[in-house]
């Protein structure tokens, strides 16, 4: 029983850590976006306002995949262990 619960907790933590690997993608993407925005502002300083707005929009959209991973990681850490342990206890009781 303890072993099973330990395996559940450990695997949830491992899964949460692995899910956050998805954070790499948005990091690279947003870095590219900001670099290009800086270039654009350097070339045309008068268009700073619209470039900044567009860049923030783009960053927010590029962030979405990272946030999906974050939501899954949070669910794995805070919600999944309770749920899975409950299921385990119920199955053992039923046997």
């Amino acid at each position, binding site marked *: 029983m303890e072993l099973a619960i330990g395996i559940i907790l450990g695997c949830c933590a491992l899964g949460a850590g692995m899910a956050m690997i998805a954070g790499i993608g948005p990091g690279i993407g947003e870095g590219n976006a900001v670099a290009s925005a800086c270039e654009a502002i350097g070339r045309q300083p008068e268009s700073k306002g619209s470039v900044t707005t567009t860049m*923030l*929009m783009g960053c*927010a959209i590029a962030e*979405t995949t990272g*946030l*999906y991973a974050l*939501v899954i990681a*949070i669910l794995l850490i*805070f919600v999944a262990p309770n749920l899975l342990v409950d299921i385990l206890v119920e199955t053992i009781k039923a046997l």
Partner: protein
Amino acid sequence: MNTKSLRFKITDAFYIAMMIIPIVFGIVLKVVTTPPSEGISITGALVYFSIPMPLQDFLITESQVNSAIAFIVILFFCLYITHGLSEKAELKRQHIAEFIVEKVAALVEENMGDYFKGFTPFIIAILALSGVSSLLTLFGLYPPTSDINIVGGWAVLVFILITYYKMKCGPLHYLKAFGDPVPFLAPLNIISEVATPLSMAFRHYGNVLSGSVISVLLGAALGGLSSMVLGWLPGFLADIPLFRIGIPAVLSVYFDIFSGCLQAFIFAMLTMLYVAGGFPLEEYMNRKAKKEKTRKCVTNK
């Protein structure tokens, strides 16, 4: 001319008080109801009470109460800022109100075009609601936007709007749009249609929630660090987490103020883009012109 009447002043004071009282009420409610806990804890919204319902219990949670607080604060802020409007703009607050409305109207017109001019109040409402809800963290309250149920509700509302404007040319035109490049891709189009509200809700909620989680983790880490480094100090000095002073505030400027306002802006911006992008304006105008032509023919006969 400059002197305000007593009645005007009393109304002003009433509005300001009504902006402050809900926040104080929220803080008191939070202090009274939060269960005592040791160390750090990251929990969802507290459930105050539940009303039994046939399918599922209807829960009154912290996030609902706090969003009600946000409604009241916004309502009385608007009443205060538009109190004593006049053509000559004698009061300073009228300039602020005009500034806000003009800015958002310009934003809406730039992003959505002339046809959607009437969308300005809706966009201002989204901006204000989302912004104030996120900024409630500054008073130590639970931000309603870090609860997916609240943000999911807004996203569903936006999805209904998008679908309504796509349906304007009739349901047949709406269904035809799904097989747009090739009919073979229809399942993918349906998935991307469903993903729109989902990603909007997740984006807003994930940003605000990750900010508060990171703040809590940093606070705990600094507390532990200061008890490790400064634990040798005599008496009560050892119990005070000195490292917690100041450092989390810098993070809070980013996560609470900047991120909260930015997410409000992005939610409003995406609403505008999706609604305006989904609406087939040319087709609608063609249909309208055709309809008027036939009506004219019928009336002439």
